[in-house]
């Protein structure tokens, strides 16, 4: 306990030099602006910043990425409140009550609530990040090839089930991601798969260009395709958070913080689901559910606390299992690998203080959003007025530069374009992108788990089903999948009613 606190204190102190403070301020600002601009998401922001920080020392690069991530999730609330357009998908729930409050002339108060909810949400998530990561890290040491295989399958299935409104399409998107991960040389015989004689394809797809394409370029194409909503910014009062709001809604904050963190831990699910789940839970628990959607402070507080608590939550499985809890966390994990940090069960042994470094980075990111929450409103309003034709080509240039920067290959720019087109087409056809990304990220882990497991067990599949943790995981996967079939849900409901009678 005290060792942890001491390590945390050291980590906090290690970022107190002027350069790091400058980075915190700058990257939080970039994050808030990216989050506030509709069409630019946290994933895109983290991916672009990954390429910018590629030559920096690992701790400072990750500090930039975490501040951008936290800033972007918070920044989305600004456009949700002022424009009724969610800056990121995570802020969609905040539109309902945030903009309703703005229409009542309470935009400043709504922004204050968003600031306090986001700050407290991040702090709650951060607390659990510090608490759970060492414990889960110990547990993860018991995982073998079989468990990692099921865990990766679980990640893709859960992301496919929860991130869109059509699980079947989510699962297909996940499988497409997994098949993309098989391109290039495989691990046992160095055999080229699906490379069709191309040396570039034999090296496989670099993760960052693929993610910049699937999230960055695809979103730019969506933004080009959709008409821009007219920008009408509501007038606003003071944006300083009110203590009375925090004191009155402390139960909502705590509940949403816990829900957000838990959903963050689930592989690949992400901040939007955390915000909606926290919002739904707050509505169920509220004495005034009829106010939800019409300017409920409770509802806005829940959504904002939930999505920001999800950020540290999503980093917990990255650090302990090497499995991302959300799409931006997937990019963050890729960045860790680029910078020589190997997230996974061994992290508490190989770099025990790194976890506390991440907690400290989260702490500074929280200070960053609090600072900009109190000071940035007028500047942000001006940024929101910048027309789309000005922003889109600049972001595209960053996508191209970012993809190239990873290994100075034009092939990576083509990969970005290819995944952008795939991402755009899939989005247009109603397929969620998060499972695709999880498939790309976890495909390799899944295959290694399966093949290693089969080699260890001499070709028998039995241990995949009989080892206790494996059994728990595959049974959960089967239940999650079966519960999406109306026939099974109907049977389950009938059984429950019969028991009640």
């Amino acid at each position, binding site marked *: 306990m005290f060792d942890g606190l001491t390590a945390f204190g050291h980590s906090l102190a290690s970022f107190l030099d002027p350069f790091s403070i400058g980075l915190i301020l700058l990257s939080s600002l970039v994050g808030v602006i990216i989050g506030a601009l509709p069409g630019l998401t946290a994933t895109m922001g983290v991916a672009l910043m990954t*390429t*910018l*920080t*590629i*030559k*920096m020392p690992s701790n400072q690069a990750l500090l930039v990425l975490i501040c951008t991530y936290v800033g972007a999730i918070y920044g989305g609330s600004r456009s949700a409140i002022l424009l009724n357009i969610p800056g990121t*998908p995570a802020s969609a729930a905040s539109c309902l009550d945030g903009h309703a409050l703005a229409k009542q002339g309470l935009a400043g108060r709504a922004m204050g609530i968003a600031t306090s909810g986001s700050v407290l949400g991040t702090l709650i998530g951060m607390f659990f990040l510090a608490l759970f990561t060492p414990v889960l890290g110990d547990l993860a040491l018991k995982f073998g090839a079989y468990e990692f295989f099921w865990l990766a399958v679980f990640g893709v299935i859960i992301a496919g089930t929860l991130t869109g*409104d*059509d699980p*079947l*399409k989510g699962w*297909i998107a996940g*499988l497409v991601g*997994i*098949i993309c991960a*098989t391109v290039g040389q*495989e691990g*046992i*015989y160095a*055999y080229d*798969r*699906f490379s069709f004689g191309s040396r570039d394809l034999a090296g496989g797809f670099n993760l960052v260009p693929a993610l910049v394409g699937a999230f960055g*370029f695809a979103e730019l*194409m*969506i933004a*080009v*395709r*959709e*008409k*821009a909503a*007219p920008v009408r910014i509501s007038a606003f009062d003071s944006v300083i958070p009110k203590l009375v709001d925090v004191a009155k809604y402390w139960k909502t904050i705590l509940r949403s913080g816990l829900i957000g963190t838990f959903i963050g831990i689930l592989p690949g699910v992400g901040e*939007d*689901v955390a915000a*909606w789940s926290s919002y739904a839970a707050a509505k169920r628990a509220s004495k005034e559910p009829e106010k939800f959607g019409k300017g409920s402070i409770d509802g806005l507080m829940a959504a904002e606390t939930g999505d920001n608590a999800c950020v540290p939550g999503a980093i917990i499985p990255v650090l302990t299992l090497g499995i991302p809890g959300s799409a931006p966390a997937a990019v963050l994990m890729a960045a860790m690998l680029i910078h020589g940090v190997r997230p996974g069960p061994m992290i508490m042994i190989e770099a025990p203080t790194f976890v506390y470094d991440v907690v400290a980075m989260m702490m500074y990111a929280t200070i960053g959003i609090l600072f900009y929450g109190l000071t940035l409103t007028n500047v942000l309003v001006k940024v929101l007025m910048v*027309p789309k*034709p*000005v922003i*889109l*080509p600049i972001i*595209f*240039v*960053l996508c*191209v*530069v970012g993809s*190239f920067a990873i290994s*100075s290959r*034009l092939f990576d*720019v*083509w990969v*970005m*374009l290819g995944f952008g087109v795939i991402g755009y087409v899939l*989005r*247009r*056809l*109603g397929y*969620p992108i998060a499972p695709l990304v999880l498939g790309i990220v976890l495909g390799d882990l899944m295959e290694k788990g*399966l*093949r290693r497991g*089969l080699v260890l067990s001499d*070709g028998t599949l039995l241990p995949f089903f009989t080892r206790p943790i494996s059994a728990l995981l595959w049974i959960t996967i089967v239940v999650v999948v079966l519960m999406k079939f109306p026939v099974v849900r109907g049977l389950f409901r009938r059984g429950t009613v019969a028991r009640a009678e």
Partner: protein
Amino acid sequence: MPATSFPVAPRTDLRTAFFWIALGAAIVFESWRMDRFEQQGAELYTAPGLWPGVIGLLIALLGGALAWRSVRRARVNGWEAAEVDEAILVPASRFALATAMFFIYALLLVGRGLPFWLGTALFVTAFVFTFRRADRMSGAATGTNRGDAILAIVCGVATAVVIPLVFEQLFFVRLP
């Protein structure tokens, strides 16, 4: 829960389902053709094609499930039900032009001998001017040709100066 931005008609889903079935079958076929290293005494479960073959099979199976579901939905609501509202979209020609400009920049203007700053300045200036003008023509924006041209040139030059400065000089990242 958040809805997807673009509702999809059963007819579109059915076409996509056929694509998934074809893709899955092609993956299975290609995986089957991969070397199994049997001459080196390798076991079948270590074959490079095993995993992609399984995934290909699953893609084809889920494609089949999607086809079956689209037929069922079409029987209830018709083949064209729930198609996207075209009113929220810009004309397809405008989208095609923007996409073409993205591709021209990424494939022809970058890394093909033209200095990065020049290619970037040309792309950003052309993009901003074209689409500001299009916004003006459709009544979504106000202004003049001259004003838009100045804005476009400022954006183009600023991007061409700032990006190399930040990436190359500040963060030591190589540009195309």
